[in-house]
């Protein structure tokens, strides 16, 4: 699958009119300089040869250097990717904290007003564009209440004093024992992660609800009741645990949703993640950078599906062997 995606990226980038050098630097350099650069990048060779070289480079981890500002693409990925990782993990945390309990409650109390309320919440929150929720959150918590910062990953001072190790600022602060920076970093994280997490929680809620309803119909639920188990342990230990298996599987498919949402959230909150870099490089027509970033997203999808398999094996003994 990685292979297919890589090919897709390659083809997309090559069907673009002109070539990457021309698109990015046309107008900035003379015609001779442009030709020189094109030859250096190998764009004068036949497509199939280019494709072969491209695959070789990707597989050996050479993603090239950005055309516009000469950053190694791997560096872009390491620095900005870390910010995206921090954002998405935090958002997923919020989504689970909000979505799972509400979904379980709704599934358990099916067809009561609690269920209806939770369902409508799930639908409406999912219907909200994440950047619009971000706008509302900025307005309320940033401007009216003035509680939280609405932009970027950290305050200026913190940014200046932190030494990058992992590029995940929270972890960097912990490594160096700069505990005083943590509140600032967390404050910056709250609105972006909260907004993205809330949108995803709508999906999680619906997913949990449907699966709880279905497992509650299970034969082993009736059997557990027939043994006189307490209703609470029937629901928690048997129904919810079994509902988790399909929930985890399907939420793996939501990785696409999470990553898409991350791009928009980063734009909304000036979060220096890989998504906002992508938009920036797209605007600059820097195809090398765009190509590298998309490859990372493709790899992230594959990594998430592997992670899902591991989690499922941990929950379900039938998957283990």
């Amino acid at each position, binding site marked *: 699958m990685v292979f297919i995606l890589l090919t897709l990226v390659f083809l997309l980038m090559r069907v673009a009119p002109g070539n990457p050098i021309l698109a990015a630097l046309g107008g900035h350099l003379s015609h001779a300089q442009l030709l020189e650069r094109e030859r250096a990048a190998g764009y004068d060779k036949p497509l199939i040869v280019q494709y072969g070289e491209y695959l070789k480079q990707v597989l050996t981890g050479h993603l090239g250097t950005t055309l516009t500002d000469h950053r190694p693409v791997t560096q872009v990925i390491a620095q900005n990717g870390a910010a995206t990782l921090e954002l998405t993990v935090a958002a997923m945390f919020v989504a689970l904290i909000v979505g799972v309990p509400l979904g379980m409650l709704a599934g358990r109390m099916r067809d009561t007003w609690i269920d209806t309320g939770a369902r409508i919440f799930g639908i409406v929150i999912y219907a909200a564009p994440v*950047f619009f929720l971000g706008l509302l959150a900025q307005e309320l918590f940033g401007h009216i209440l003035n509680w939280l910062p609405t932009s970027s990953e950290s305050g200026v001072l913190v940014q200046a004093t932190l030494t990058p190790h992992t590029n995940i600022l929270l972890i960097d602060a912990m490594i160096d024992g700069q505990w005083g920076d943590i509140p600032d970093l967390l404050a910056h994280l709250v609105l972006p992660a909260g907004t993205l997490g809330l949108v995803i929680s709508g999906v999680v809620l619906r997913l949990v609800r449907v699966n709880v309803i279905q497992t509650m119909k299970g034969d*082993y639920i009736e059997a557990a009741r027939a043994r006189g188990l307490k209703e609470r342990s029937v629901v928690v230990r*048997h129904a919810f645990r079994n509902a988790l298996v399909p929930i985890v599987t399907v939420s793996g498919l939501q990785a696409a949703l999470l990553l898409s949402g991350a791009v928009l959230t980063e734009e909304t909150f000036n979060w220096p993640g890989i998504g906002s870099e992508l938009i920036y490089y797209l605007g600059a027509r820097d195809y090398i950078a765009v190509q590298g970033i*998309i490859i990372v997203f493709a790899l992230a999808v594959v990594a998430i599906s592997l992670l899902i398999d591991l989690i499922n094996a941990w929950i*379900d003994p039938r998957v283990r062997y």
Partner: protein
Amino acid sequence: MATTLLPGEFESGAVPGMGPGDERLRGLHRAIAPLMAVHGLPRWLFWTGATITLVFVVLAVFAPEIAPYGYNQYVAHGIRFPQQAPPSAVHWLGTTVVSEDVYSRVIFGARTSIEVVVLALMFSVVIGVPLGLISGYFGGWLDRVLVLINDSIFAFPYLLLAIVIAFLLSSSVGGGVLTAAIAITVVYIPQYFRVVRNTVLSVREEPYVEAGRALGAKPRTVIRRYVFANVVHSVPVVASLNAADAILTLAALSFLGIGMDPSVAAEWGYDISRGIADAQAGFWWTGLFPGLAVILLVTGLTLVGEGINDTFNPLLRRPNHRRFAMPKDAREATTAAVEMERPVVRVRDLRVWYATDRGPVRAVDGVSFEIRERETLGLVGESGSGKSTLGRGILGLLPVGAIRDGSVDFEGRDLVKATQQEMRHLRGPSIGLVFQEPMTRLDPLMRISDHFAEALHTHEPDISDAEIRRRSLEALGGVRIPPTRFHNYPYEFSGGMRQRIMIALALVLKPRFVIADEPTTALDVLVEAQILSIIADLKNNFDTALLLITHNLGIVAESCDRVAVMYAGRIVEQGAVADIFSRPEHPYTQELMRSTISLSTRKLHYIPGAPPDLAAPPSGCRFHPRCPQAMEVCRAKEPVGIEIRPSHLAECWLHGPQEEIPPDGRRPLEREEIGIADEA
């Protein structure tokens, strides 16, 4: 309209006299009819969604007529609109930084969104459906390649793909509705591809396609009809949910400034991106209203999709139970005559009725029996006679909407009147239940040891771990499961072993009364014998009273002391096994005996007709339409229980009481009704 269609009315094959055009119409009817039949909350949500969607479609179509100004108009009658004016009587929702009317922009935004969505859906259906058909029909390497590409696209963050494509397109042909629509189309093709391909694949495997091929019919005809029917069902769901997603994707694209050229059309996402900057300066209205419009339209479309899905997905469907009140039972108690010493359970006139959308179903309708210590009562009858309901009715394990009446006396307590809490304490330690399908009755995620620990802990909170282990292994030893398997998971056992584990799990709590509901039906003959011998040991070792529900008379003869024959919710005959087998008195019991296959069977015997519909049971004796000896009285009056010999009861007019039969009552019933029932 097709509102009078019953769901499932057109389930079978073609209706004669319908051309291909009618067929399409029929598909449409079939698609719509269940939606009309939905009730309650789903219906309310669906229609709310449909209304919202419709309003936006009207706004989109008549945007120039409805909106007071153009989407990029900033002057009227030679006067420039105020800049960033708050909502007022002139500009209902205020104006933007370049003096455009927000209200007009929101309305024209609806037009842009709907245009893009309609185009994108058309493209993806037109491309995705044929691709799915080809892939599914031809299979082979073509199928594999297409599936691989589709799966890759499907797993990839859809927005990124749309961004890249929209970007590439807009740098070559310029941004606009078409560019955005194409970018979104690429994202949704895989979904239609999947649905259609899977439908075609599943129909190719169907036995009737195979059968048709063997008979020389063209499989293509069958496939076409089946695929069409399924696509009619699934594509609307996918489409309305996609439409919702497409609106969000479009808004995201224009928020990022990709794909839509803001000078050619108004777009909500673009306005929100302006709104973020405005809001920081205090101009909240420019972003708020376009945002609300997105939420409203996407919510509407989602509700429509969910409504359709709720209706067609059998897993989510919920019948509309009509509430009912159970009338008091006017009949006399039928078996009061039998007196036995110290019964463990005494059931009197137990009735269990289910609520359905056709009204109450009288699954158990006035049943009385008793079981003593160390005694096994066999309960036999056809499928649907109410046997299993009776077993669950005693334990109070009934679905929502079921009502119980009568009395179940267990150790001096009436279980029908007991609270949920009291019942919970009785289930397990006092009354055990063994189920029909052992494969699905154990929690697949829990070790066998955890099942035992949980059950023991619940009812004996102070029990030690060592004691749990000792008692569990003892119970498992009784059903010949070796201690080495104690910590295994259910999936590591065969069906027969799981059933033995279920029995051990019931016995470890030492119940005085066990209900075994067809414990061997799902198992093969050798395992069946094993289970039966375990059950026989059980009553000897623990003095347990046992209710053995089965449809197998052989099992009754072998393992029961007494037998009760159930028909259509009533026990029509009960007595000692030897009595009933040697001298069955009720015509139904006689017919049942004749239907049994044995070594001397020359010709299969069956009882003509089918078990009655318990929502509207036949008048009088419920067996009269199928009874070979039916008389006039059987149709007119419900039979009374008669004690034919000590402890042998039957409910049949053939045995009286004579004084209750009207003068003409003994005339044989006209036979035509059997013929009708037989065809049903």
